Structure formats: structure tokens, C-alpha cells
């Protein structure tokens, strides 16, 4: 039987059930639709946007209270502390990344889409970073003031967080995808994801420390960029694979 490339052949144009040429859309439109949906969802549950920032602020407040309010001491631990707090804030926001989509069947629809799944996953993660990682990167310098972070560190702090949280979103999404079908996935998610976060933390906090001590920040930031490049290239495939396993078994 002769076949067209789509595997179907239609003899009767009127009774055809195939999409008419010109009504199909390209990959960039699919990407835009996915991003638009995620943004709309985030807008409806506005509180989720603020929670990671509040978490960051609270964790930062705990340390002077728990250790000591001496500016010298705080300044010394500030880079690592801000990075750890931001990393934990990212981690906490991850559990919800796929959960509602899994429960309401949207994830199943996503898997049955003829569009490339890794790309759709990347769109989802991109929005997660945009609405969690970026605000954290912008707010962390404010928290730096509370911790007497030396003036030379602020710009690097924001830059390293902006770069690093993108990797954190991507790596964390793998864990979120693996645990989305599990009833108590939250704690397990931290166990799976935190060890994988360590390189990002080391290079991120390292960059800020270098900036404070007057060293070059370029190597650490370049390494963060390299990690991000690797994560962008590889993580969407792992996320897509993990989602297929979680949804289909």
C-alpha cells in the first residue's frame, strides 16, 4: 500500500480527518504555548512566587540569631550562607514542579504530544527558573546587606546565582520527575538532588568568595556556565525519560 510520509493517505478530501495544511504550528509556537501556560498557572497561584523569597529571608535571619551578630564573622560566612539558603529555596519549590500536572492528567497529554518532549520539559523548567531562580538572584544581594557582605561581592552574588540556579532548576527537575508519582516524594527528592547540587554550590559560592577577596571571578563563573551548558544539553532528556517512567511505569 503506497503511503505518504505521515503514514496516511486520504482519498476523499471532504471526509478527511487529517489536519488541513496550514493549520499546523511549528516548534517555536509550541514552546511559546507551553511557556504561556506555565506563566498563566504561576499567575493564578501567586503565593508560590513569594514563598521561596520568604524562605530565603527567614533562613538568613536565623544565622545571626543562631551564631552571632558580629559583622566580621557574618561577612566571612555570607557567600556560602546565601548560596546554601538560595539552593534550599530552589529545592523546596521543586516538589510542586510536576505534581499538579501529574494529578490532573496534563502530563499524560504532554507525553502523547507529537512535539519533542525534552523541549517541552525545557520550557517548563525555564519558567521555573524565571519565576524562582531569577527572583532569588535579584533578592539575595538585599539579604547580603543583612549579613554585612562586603561591597565587592554583590554583583558576583547576583550573577552567580542567576547562572547557578538555572543549573539547579534543570538538575532538580530530574529528581522531581523521578519522584512525581510517589506519595511522599519530598524528602526523597532532597536526598536524590542535593548531592548533585554540590558542584554548583562550590563554584557559585567560590565565585562570590573570590570577588570579596579581590581575586578573579572569571574562572568560577566560567565553570558555572560550563555546568549550565552541560545541564541544558543533557538534563531535558533525563527529565523526559524520568517523566515517561513516572507516568507509564
Amino acid at each position, binding site marked *: 500500500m503506497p503511503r505518504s510520509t505521515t503514514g496516511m493517505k486520504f482519498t476523499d478530501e471532504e471526509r478527511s480527518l487529517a*489536519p488541513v495544511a496550514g493549520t499546523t504550528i511549528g516548534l517555536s509556537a509550541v514552546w511559546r504555548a*507551553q511557556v504561556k501556560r506555565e506563566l498563566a498557572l504561576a499567575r493564578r497561584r501567586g503565593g508560590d512566587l513569594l514563598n521561596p523569597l520568604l524562605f530565603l529571608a527567614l533562613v538568613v535571619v536565623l544565622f545571626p540569631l543562631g551564631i552571632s551578630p558580629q559583622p566580621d564573622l557574618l561577612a566571612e560566612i555570607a557567600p556560602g550562607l546565601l548560596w546554601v539558603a538560595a539552593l534550599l529555596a530552589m529545592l523546596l519549590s521543586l516538589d510542586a514542579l510536576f505534581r499538579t500536572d501529574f494529578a*490532573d*492528567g*496534563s502530563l499524560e497529554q504532554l507525553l502523547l504530544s*507529537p512535539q519533542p518532549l525534552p523541549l517541552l520539559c525545557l520550557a517548563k523548567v525555564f519558567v521555573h527558573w524565571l519565576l524562582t531562580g531569577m527572583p532569588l538572584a535579584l533578592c539575595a544581594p538585599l539579604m547580603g546587606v543583612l549579613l554585612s557582605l562586603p561591597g565587592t561581592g554583590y554583583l558576583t552574588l547576583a550573577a552567580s546565582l542567576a547562572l547557578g540556579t538555572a543549573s539547579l532548576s534543570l538538575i532538580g527537575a530530574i529528581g522531581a520527575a523521578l519522584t512525581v508519582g510517589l506519595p511522599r516524594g519530598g524528602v526523597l527528592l532532597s536526598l536524590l538532588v542535593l548531592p548533585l547540587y554540590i558542584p554548583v554550590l562550590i563554584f557559585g559560592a567560590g565565585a562570590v568568595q573570590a570577588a570579596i577577596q579581590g581575586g578573579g571571578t572569571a574562572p568560577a563563573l566560567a565553570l558555572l556556565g560550563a555546568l549550565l551548558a552541560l545541564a541544558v544539553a543533557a538534563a531535558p532528556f533525563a527529565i523526559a525519560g524520568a517523566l515517561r517512567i513516572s507516568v507509564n511505569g
Partner: protein
Amino acid sequence: MNVALDARQLACERDDRWLFESLDLHVGDGDILRIEGANGSGKTTLLKMLTAQLSPQAGTLTWHGRPLARARDAFFRALLYIGHAPGVAAALTAEENLSWSAAMAGIKASPAEIERSLAAVGLAGFENLPAQQLSAGQQRRIALARLELMKRPLWILDEPFTAIDRDGVAWLERRIATHCEEGGAVILTTHHTFQANDRVTSVVLGVAD
């Protein structure tokens, strides 16, 4: 020819337990295939195989003569699937849900077309309400509006009659019938007694254990 989905000697093993074996199926234009079976008999798993989500442990599945795993792209472009969970995000409006569904299917849908398909399932005037403000039945109707919005020859519906009222059931039965008259095909699982129709074939999955 729109639809040609064939299964030969299909078998499924889950967690070291055979759910079904030696299953032969053919779904062509105008066919309605109804999958029956008790809970745990492998209905969901069979649907996952027929939607190319799981590969069978034994036997072959073909789409227009090509192995289903190789023909996924063409197959997904011909498939409209409504699962047990209908894929309607509660926080989004009916209109937003449908335009996303259409985009994921790779179809361009104008607001007018979306409005028309929502009207067809009795949701005219509810376009811009978040789905969580609608009843469970209305939320399912949002999913059913996809049947109107997207032209797809093969429908696979998991329990499509749940949660909708009598009018909805009648509408869906009619819609399935017209779809088959137009040359489409439908595979569905349901406990609902379907109106006698010579095009309906049934597969009963044996109870495991």
C-alpha cells in the same frame, strides 16, 4: 484509509505477572473497539500499549503496517487521547486549557474555533472561568471539547462517560457514532452499556490470578 492499528499476539507482563497473552486486535476506519475487564485486568496497561507509551513484552503492534514504536510521530498526529484524568488544569480557564491542548497537538486553533467547540459541549459562556470553579462533569466536558476542536482519526478514550450527565452521555454517544461515520475509529474502556451498534466489537480481558 485513516486508521489501521493492528495487534498480533500481544502479551503483557507487569511485575513478573502476565496480565494478558495472545491478544489479537484490528482497528480500522469506522470501528469502535470496546475494552472490558474487571479492575486489575490490564485495561490501563493495554491502553498504554495502544497509545505507544509502553512496548509489549511479546507480540507486535503496527500502525499502517509499520511497527508502532517506529511510527510514533505519525501515530501521535492521528491520535486524540482522553485519559482517566482528563488533562484539564484546574487553575486555567476552559479557553486556556483548550488552546494549550491544541498547541501540544500541533494544531493552530483560533479563539473562535475554541469558543465553537466549547459551545458544542454545552459550555458556552464558561470560556473564561477557571476550571476549578466548574463542576467535575463540566471539567470533563472541557476535555471532551477536544473531540470537536481537533480533527484526529483515532480516538482513545479511557472511561469517557464518567462524571457527565445524561445529556452529556447522549451527546458523546452521538459524537462517537458520527466520528465513525466520517471514517474515524474509537477505542474506549467503559462500564457504560453502549447502544447496540454493529460496529462495536468488544475485547474482554481475563481476570488475573
